[in-house]
């Protein structure tokens, strides 16, 4: 039985019809892109400093003076809410002798470097330079902190180190139309973690851009998702796949008992698995209908989502480094950041957002935690991915390995490299 998907005539705001299949050939992808310091340098110069990047959530900095320091490679950026409620971003670098100015998150009336107390306003402009008269050359002519481009979309703050960067919405196109129906602004952050992984940032991006590895390292998911019959769509820079959840893989036999992860999804929606007399492969559609019918009474507004979105994983990659597992009730957002100098290391940020029911009190904002791989669990599935990645990176470094041998189920990896090449060159 093929997976039943919404029909072209069914309600949807997120485009759901398959995009035209691109042809990126079948060449081996050079492994140096993952292992070489030289490639890493070019990637920085030609890609990271040119694209739009996700900084923080708008509700991380709700009030004037609220700031959040985010980092990418060797750079740190202060994102700060202005008095007029707009958001601006500055390199977190003191113009005196280069010291970092701010750390973490908080509220400030000015940014004051703790080395010699040079002080900058929320707008980045010099506010006070102690003993300015002892600088015969005067203050630096630039008037203050070096600014980066900053904009907001769909509850997130974005920045670009490229002064020539196109407008954010143009960069993200066509995804705003895809993702706005999820109303991320109605969701709240419930987890905020950063893990240091021993692999290149792309090794991690790749691991989320294909479901081919589910049979290998997430076998228990074969009884919760369809891993092979997935719809892959590539758009300009970005891509996605649509993975049916609350069903079973075609690789396994249907059972009489409903697998526990599917039961869990039913219970979460208030549907009692003990009263469901249909077959396991009939749960997904029934759960969609149940959520459609009972969502409003539970204070959950699914009105902008199509039926499949009520159960499935609409899984997006926003180039270059964002992985979005979008679900009706939550968003699991992964941000993969390169290490400042080592192509064999990266930072993996996990942000989990949960849709609040109407009138549900906002939970306390989670504290950001940072740790090394293995020090703390990220949950079974992510732990399985994390456990595997250093081995992939180590193997790619072997002289015996030439490059990535990519199949159709990994089309998103090819597309990602196609876009990467358009920045870095091949």
């Amino acid at each position, binding site marked *: 039985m093929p997976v039943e998907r919404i029909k072209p005539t069914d309600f949807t705001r997120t485009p759901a019809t398959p995009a035209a299949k691109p042809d990126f050939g079948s060449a081996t992808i050079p492994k140096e892109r993952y292992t070489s310091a030289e490639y890493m340098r070019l990637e920085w110069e030609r890609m990271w400093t040119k694209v739009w990047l996700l900084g923080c959530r708008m509700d991380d900095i709700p009030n004037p003076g609220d700031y959040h320091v985010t980092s990418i490679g060797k750079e740190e950026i202060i994102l700060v809410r202005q008095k007029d409620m707009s958001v601006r971003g500055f390199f977190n670098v003191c113009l005196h002798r280069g010291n970092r100015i701010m750390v973490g998150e908080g509220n400030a009336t000015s940014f004051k470097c703790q080395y010699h107390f040079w002080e900058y306003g929320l707008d980045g402009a010099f506010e006070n330079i102690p003993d300015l008269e002892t600088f015969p050359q005067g203050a630096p002519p630039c008037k203050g902190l070096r600014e980066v481009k900053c904009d907001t979309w769909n509850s997130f703050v974005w920045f670009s180190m490229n002064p020539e960067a196109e407008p954010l919405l143009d960069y993200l196109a066509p995804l705003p139309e895809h993702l706005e129906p999820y109303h991320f602004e109605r969701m709240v952050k419930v987890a905020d973690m950063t893990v240091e992984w021993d692999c290149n940032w792309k090794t991690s991006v790749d691991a989320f851009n294909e479901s081919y590895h589910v049979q290998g390292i997430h076998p228990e998911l074969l009884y919760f998702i369809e891993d092979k019959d997935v719809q892959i769509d590539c758009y300009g820079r970005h891509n996605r796949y649509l993975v049916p959840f609350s069903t079973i893989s075609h690789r*396994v036999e249907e059972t009489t008992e409903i697998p526990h992860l599917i039961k869990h999804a039913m219970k979460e929606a208030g549907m009692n698995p003990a009263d469901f007399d249909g077959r396991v492969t009939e749960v997904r559609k029934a759960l969609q209908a149940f959520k459609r019918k009972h969502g409003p009474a539970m204070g959950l507004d699914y009105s902008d989502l199509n039926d499949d979105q009520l159960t499935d994983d609409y899984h997006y990659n926003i180039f270059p480094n964002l992985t979005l597992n979008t679900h009706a009730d939550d968003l699991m957002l992964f941000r993969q950041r390169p290490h400042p100098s080592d192509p064999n290391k990266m930072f993996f940020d996990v942000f989990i957002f949960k849709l609040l029911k109407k009138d549900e009190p906002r939970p306390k904002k989670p504290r950001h935690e940072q740790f090394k791989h293995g020090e703390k669990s990220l949950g079974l599935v992510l732990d399985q991915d994390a456990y595997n990645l250093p081995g992939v990176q180590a193997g790619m470094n072997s002289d015996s390995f030439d490059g990535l041998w990519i199949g159709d189920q990994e089309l998103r990896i090819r597309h990602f490299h196609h876009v990467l090449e358009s920045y870095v060159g091949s």
Partner: protein
Amino acid sequence: MDLRLKGLKAAVTGGTRGIGNAIVHVLAEEGCALATCGRAPERIESLRRQMDAAGVRFHGETVQGRDGEAMRNWTRNSVEALGGLDIFVASLSAGGGTDEERYWYRNFEIDLMSAVRGVEEALPALRQSKCPSILILATMAASETFVAPMAYNAIKAALVTWSKQLSQQLAPEGIRVNCLSPGPTMFKGSNWEMIRVARSRIYDNAVRQQPTRRMGTAEEIARSAVFLASPAASWCNGSHLLVDGGFSKRVPF
């Protein structure tokens, strides 16, 4: 040993999968005509094709086990289609489930009442048979603490009690009633196959308790079941046979 099943007519609930399905096949090989019911129409159809190919008289219907009327109708239709009935096997089960009160109702309707209803409808035909017998499938988990306390285990225990007392009532009429409790059983599409992959710790724990470090196969259960139901087991009545490869540790004096 001749099981003396040739030419007999048997109805098996839940015969499209697993143990029930294996019982259907063994009975067919032994020369019985077969009737069965199950939830999936395509499984009924594929079974029909297999039986047709083997030249076995067959009646199959899609039935939802919770639907009492449908269960009774299927039993009556089976008697009619086969032109009588000698053996009734109650194998249908809803499987396990915890943490929801509604599982008690589910197992009550599907495991217990489908058997009670089927037997009630089968009795008039069985009374006409020369070697009538009823076989009730329960579970080792009814008498051995297993995985978690749940409706499945306890409702199956009710079947054990009921089948024993039914055997006393029906013995004077020459109708034998026996009960068989399988241990963990592995077959294609079994819940254990899913648990092995999706909840490997529960599976490993179950297999560790098995002295041979493997689960039984549906055929291994079916052969014992077919013997108990057959005229060859004429002196087995009211017995409760544990077929678990040595899983349970209790000495049943």
